[in-house]
């Protein structure tokens, strides 16, 4: 049985996803599928909060590669928050970090987004 679960919330074209557990098998594919659905529903920003993620392997990297690709295709942006160093190192090594913005926590990401929107307006 997969040791993975996912919850998400969204408001004003921003979706926050909270994966929990191990991102290391097909059980975690719901993360990629959910992000596609959210992008399809018009979300311009996806925030992934890593605080409850315990383990990421190549399987997980594949899922996040897919998410990056789909986000780019939708002209949306992907933010990562609450990352442990070990996870950040994996993403850096695999060249994923260049395609996302990393924040210390969700609040910081949302503040950044607010400032960005104000600037655009």
């Amino acid at each position, binding site marked *: 049985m997969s040791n993975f679960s996912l919850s998400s919330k969204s408001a004003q074209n921003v979706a926050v996803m909270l994966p929990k557990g191990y991102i290391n098998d097909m059980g975690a594919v719901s993360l990629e599928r959910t992000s596609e659905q959210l992008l399809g529903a018009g979300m311009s920003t996806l925030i992934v909060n890593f605080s409850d993620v315990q383990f990421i392997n*190549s*399987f997980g990297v594949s899922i996040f590669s897919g998410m990056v690709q789909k986000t780019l295709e939708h002209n949306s942006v992907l933010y990562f928050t609450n990352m442990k160093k070990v996870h950040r190192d*994996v993403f850096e090594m695999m060249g994923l970090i260049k395609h996302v913005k990393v924040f210390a926590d969700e609040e910081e990401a949302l503040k950044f987004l607010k400032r960005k929107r104000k600037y655009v307006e």
Partner: protein
Amino acid sequence: MSNRKLDLKRLMFSMASLVDLGQEATSSKDLSAKMKAALYVITGMFSVPTAALFVYRPQRHDIELLVDKGHREKALQGTAMPIRAEQIKDLRANYPHSTRDLAKSSFFLQNRDILTKLQTKIVLPLFVKGEFVGALTLGRKLGGAAFRQGEKEVLRVIAHQMAITLHNARLFLELAQRAAENKRLYTSMQRIYHETIQAFAAAIDAKDDYTKNHSYRVASYAVAIAKELGWKKKDVEGIYIAGLLHDIGKIIIDVKVIQKGATLSASERTEIRRHPQISFDILSKIKFPWKNVEKFVLHHHERLDGNGYPDSLKDSELSDGVKILALVDAFDAMTSDRPYREKLSLGVAFREVMRCKGTQFDEKITHTFFNLLSKEISGEVKELQILPHLQNMDMSSFKAIASDSSM
């Protein structure tokens, strides 16, 4: 992080991923599920968002899409790329191939549309001991960086692993197909076998109008008792066959003796009593898949008190199978018209069997048979095995006598 340290980390990550790949490839999932999982591991190793795995179909000279990742799945369903022997030969050297390297190859030119649709940057042919089994295509890396030499080496290892998995799956599938075909043939042969035996039984019974369907009824009654006693399926089949063939020896007994209406002379009795031994002699030449068929047949005229034939065996020497056949053969003879008398009523036949219980017929077998018949008459059991053969017989006399008996 220094380049050396980064390379070391990448190497460690690749090794861990190869272990993950091995676990996915040898998992108990079905082929598509395990290959899909393997695609995730592979694409994760190189940060490639898209990939596809094709399986070679030698009869069709093409490779068919088995699983993919990162594409709109429905649009790719049923995708296949033609590939000829010389194109496979071209792919064998120096793989993995970038699409840039392949740009002028006939394989690429022929399948350019599909490869472009798949966003292919790398084509990895899959071989097991020189045999082509499929191909893996990978899209461009996130950020567009080229595959490094070390990564190409890892891809070759991956290709080997995926090829073995595909090859084993194909062998397994072939075995499963062969097993299914063998099973179909076996069922068909079994049906022919049964039909042949039934034809023999019909031939035996046809020798005498009075014994028409006798073997079939004996077989059916015997099966009913055997099932009620909890016999295994194969043993039930055995007694069914013994029931059908128990009188096969009558085929060479003079038809005048068989059809004689009056009392038999001593020599005629001797003649007719030869039939169990003749049946045995005929059947013992056949290697039946069921145990004891010929022995059941040989002794179906034995009695518990030792006054039967051909071997005058006694109770303890008689198997349940013999005791079943002895009872149902006699019961059917009683409840059928004979040249020398009309059939007995069910009640009279029941009383006659009960009278001979302990001397001619076994008590357990007798009770099992009549209990089952009672249950069929009263509607306690749904599957009727005896009653359908006793049509036009008065059940009321049996019910009255059976309820009064100590059965």
